[in-house]
């Protein structure tokens, strides 16, 4: 706790980020403290401080190249494999630094799941896609338990009714929107606490997009959701809190209504009005 306090005090002194309602205590599942990220010598995220609230949808938005995708990928260490990538500062998950020693990045990913921009189902059956995570982690040895994990995950992803009669068919035969919901189901099957979604609807048609958005709102009942989008309407529709990033800086962070209706930074205002 000491470290967190000193982190937040430093944040107030050094960063120009405009925080809405910082005084209110938040139930944070994840907390970034003085977090910076680099590709080689290029600093792509500069001293980010923010809290991701439990059972809420936190949206990262900003123009292309602002670092929002890098940021979300650092939250479950998906960038570890990128050569030249390094970080400073802390990402605390329930108080534990996920970049600290003794943290297994493989197990971290079972707590913090991820859904990608382009639907990426595996070239195996629908059932096997959802069962992939539980199988590799040996979550269950019994077929009936695995069946129920698959069914529940597909139900939570609002896909069960569409695929229950063809679980053995290839996942590649599904439509783009169905594939993306399958990927969400696949992520849910390992029972994560948090789900990162990197522009999950940007490759989908409007109908599929609204289904995925409805799904996000339902998911926040049981999960903490982080959404990356460059679509402001989407951010306003589903976001609880919104972080606006620009050129690696966290410019503004606060409840969605405050950020959209009373942006404190002129940059945010410009972006919202489409002038950036």
């Amino acid at each position, binding site marked *: 706790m000491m470290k967190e306090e000193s982190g937040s005090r430093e944040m107030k002194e050094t960063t120009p980020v405009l925080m809405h309602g910082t005084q209110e205590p938040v139930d944070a599942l994840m907390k970034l403290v003085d977090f910076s990220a680099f590709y080689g010598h290029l600093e792509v995220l500069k001293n980010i401080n923010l809290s991701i609230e439990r059972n809420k949808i936190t949206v990262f938005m900003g123009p292309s190249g602002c670092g929002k995708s890098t940021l979300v990928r650092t939250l*479950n260490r*998906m960038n570890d*494999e990128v*050569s030249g990538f390094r970080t400073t500062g802390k990402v605390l998950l329930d108080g534990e630094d996920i970049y600290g020693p003794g943290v297994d990045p*493989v*197990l*971290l*990913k*079972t707590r913090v*799941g*991820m859904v*990608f921009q*382009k639907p*990426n*189902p*595996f*070239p*195996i*059956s629908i059932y096997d896609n959802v069962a*992939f*995570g539980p199988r*590799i*982690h040996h979550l269950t040895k019994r077929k009936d338990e695995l069946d129920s994990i698959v069914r529940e995950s597909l139900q939570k992803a609002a896909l069960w009714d569409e695929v229950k009669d063809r679980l053995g068919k*290839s*996942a*590649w035969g599904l439509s783009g929107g169905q594939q993306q919901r399958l*990927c969400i189901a*696949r*992520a849910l099957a*390992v029972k994560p606490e948090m789900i990162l979604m990197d522009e999950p609807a940007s490759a989908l048609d409007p109908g599929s997009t609204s289904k995925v958005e409805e799904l996000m709102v339902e998911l926040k009942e049981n999960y903490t959701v982080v959404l990356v989008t460059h679509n402001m309407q989407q951010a306003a529709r589903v976001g609880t809190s919104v972080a606006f990033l620009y050129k690696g800086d966290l410019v503004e962070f606060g409840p969605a209504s405050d950020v959209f209706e009373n942006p404190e930074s002129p940059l945010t205002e410009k972006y919202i009005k489409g002038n950036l």
Partner: protein
Amino acid sequence: MTARSDKSSVGVSPWNSPSVISNHKRRQRIDIILKVVVTACVIAVVVPLGDLLFMFCYRGIEVISIPRLLGNPISSIPGLSNGIVGTAILTTLAACISIPLGIFGGIYMAEFSKGGKFAEGIRFCSDVLAGVPSIVLGYVCFLAFVLFFGWGYGPAAGAVVLSIIMFPYIFRTTEIAIKKVPEGIKEGAIALGSTKATMINRLVLRFALPGILTGILLSVGIALSETAPLLYTANFANYNPTGFFHSQLGYLTGFIWLFYQSPLPQDVDLAYLATFLLILIVLCLNIVARVGLRRFSKV
């Protein structure tokens, strides 16, 4: 070209000017010439190839008989059973050495090397190895294994030289096949908390298998058809081998090389039979691979 109206809304249309029309006719002529040239090239290749295949198959079917398949060259009816056995032993042993090395090496290059100078060096060496004439490899292995290590002529030395010839093909095709697996699938597996080994084992290899199998078949085909390096390492014998070392053995390509210019017609028959069998084996390998791949690629 269909003529267009001159009364275009944007003024005089350029499409009816003589230079445009003559240009179009010139391009049509070039198109026809290209079609004729490529068709002629295909015919020039396919006809002699078809003729050769037909001749070998015709002669092969003419001379094939049970005693020829079961006997050896010094039986009362000369046969090439020891060649079939020898080719099978050499190719199987070589495959046992080169397939695991090639596949694991390819996996390393595609997934673990991170494209450094070391990996670049390995790739370069492998490409050089693939370009070295096989007779040179045969001589090197003769000096190293047959003489220096004292293995003598036999299946061991022969299999080692064949595996050296096979390795680069399996190695490179495995690397390429794995690199072709969509990044999204690999990321998807990693994001579910799979280790690299699990990801490779459960998804990547499955996806890359058609490519890897193609490389293996290509290399087996090459190993089947090698002669010169085997003359250096396995020499030739009319009997089946009795051990891995100091035990010369026969093989099908050896029959072709040693028997086709023999004055005895029964020896020449054996050379034709060996040719026919090799063609048949390569054909079967390809058919099996294609059928297997088709069944496999259905998810």
